[in-house]
């Protein structure tokens, strides 16, 4: 966290969907090795915020900087930048017509121009790491949700990203599969990966994150360390939210 230039920085970011103001003056910096968790009620803009960082969502005004450089708008530069930031989606989005192995090797071969045999060796190593190596020859639809999401993480890791974005990675999973994905993420955090995680998994947030950012109505309402936020929330909005999820 010592490094001065943040890996990801957002300055005064605004975005509208028509008349809906989905992101309001967002200022945020994520430093190297930091695990930042974005939480908040649905519709608060946390997923949108996460997706603006690799320009899957555009912004209306403000600035997004990656290692101090403005986020490219298009072309090779944008593709290049996206290659350096991993993204894991709620619905996995594995390439349905490719095998598990091909899903992981596609990026390295097509983008990094890694020779096929090297890419495959690395991919198998990653698949082993996330515990799905024996599924390498199958297609995504033959795997469970938890396995697919772990493959999706391996696919991102194969690009040797500087940072990874997780957009509700466990929200589409059956309860018994959530932990196998979270474990992989915990492991990544321990290894020092810079991570932005949109999640509803409060235990994960408390255990792994360095900082919790609470959003509501497109704004950052509160941020702090997990213990600050979970044990002593400052705002009424955050208290309500925490009460509602602890509720019963």
């Amino acid at each position, binding site marked *: 966290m010592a490094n001065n230039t943040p890996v990801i920085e957002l300055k005064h970011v605004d975005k509208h969907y028509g008349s809906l103001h989905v992101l309001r003056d967002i200022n945020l910096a994520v430093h190297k090795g930091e695990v930042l968790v974005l939480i908040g009620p649905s519709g608060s803009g946390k997923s949108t915020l996460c997706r603006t960082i690799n320009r899957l969502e555009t912004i209306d005004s403000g600035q997004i900087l990656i290692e101090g450089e403005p986020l490219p708008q298009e072309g090779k530069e944008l593709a290049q930048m996206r290659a350096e930031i991993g993204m894991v989606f709620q619905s996995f989005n594995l390439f*349905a*017509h490719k095998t598990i192995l091909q899903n992981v090797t596609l990026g390295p071969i097509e983008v990094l121009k890694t020779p096929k045999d090297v890419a495959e060796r690395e991919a198998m190593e990653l698949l082993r790491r996330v515990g799905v190596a024996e599924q390498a020859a199958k297609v995504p639809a033959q795997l469970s949700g938890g396995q697919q999401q772990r493959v999706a993480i391996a696919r991102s890791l194969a690009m040797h990203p500087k940072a990874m974005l997780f957009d509700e990675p466990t929200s589409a999973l059956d309860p018994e599969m959530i932990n196998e994905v979270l474990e992989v993420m915990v492991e990544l955090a321990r290894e020092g990966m810079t991570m932005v995680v949109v999640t509803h998994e409060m235990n994960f947030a408390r255990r792994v994150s360095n900082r919790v950012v609470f959003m509501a109505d497109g704004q950052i309402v509160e941020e702090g360390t997990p213990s600050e936020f979970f044990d002593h929330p400052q705002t009424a909005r955050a208290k309500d939210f925490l009460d509602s999820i602890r509720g019963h």
Partner: protein
Amino acid sequence: MSAHTVSMRDALYEAPGPKTRRLTIVGTILSLVLVGIGLALVVRQFYVSGQLDAKYWVFFTQLHTWRYLFDGFLGTIRVAAMAGAISLLLGVLLMLGRISNVRPLSAVCRVIIDFFRGVPSLLLIYFFYLVIPQYGIRLSAFWMITLPVALAASGVLAEVFRAGVNAVPKGQTEAALSIGLTPGKTMVKIVLPQALRIVVPSLISQLVVVVKDTTVAYVVSYPDLMQNARVLITTHDAVVSVYLVVAVLYILVNYAINQLSITMARRSGNPIVSRTTENPT
């Protein structure tokens, strides 16, 4: 039916009870009887009107009749294959133009697609046959039938492909972009291969239309199956028998296209067992 395959019928209807099963049996017998009666009537009518006379059929025992039909058959295959190939390629290109972000290109492609889709292929054939030669462009009979048929089909195919591209879940594109593929590569490597597989059924019907469109080749005197059949009809004064045989040949060709497309779709990669990835935010 094996344990893990669900037929379309199973998916659409509930399993029949005893009453329905009895009704089904009655219905089956009744319809078989009706079909039988219908066929008998047709054959009887042929017999009465003399269509079954030996003179209408005996020339089918001669080798050169078949050789002549076979030549026509090859002509049909040649035109259909070339027109099919051109229309597939042109269809993909038109579709890519149509969905491009470049407004003028998209507009032009849209007009071209709508034009070829809207104009009857016979009119296009007349255009190539009667209008184009006036401008000093000399095309062989082969191209005068192949090009208009291909153009007419390409418009429809472009729309078929577009439907396929739209049916590929958005998450596939987002995932491809997020690992650093350019939009172009995303289209070629991720979207198109999946889109193609989605549209195989529509593709088959359109290629069958191409084969059927080639039957107007007589307009430009290209010796396809239909043209040669017409010659046989005049030579032997036998309409019904020749048309019956030719109809069977056309059905065989289209059946072959059907089988070929299915095999190709199966071979073109890994099976997509289900498509469940729509992207909710």
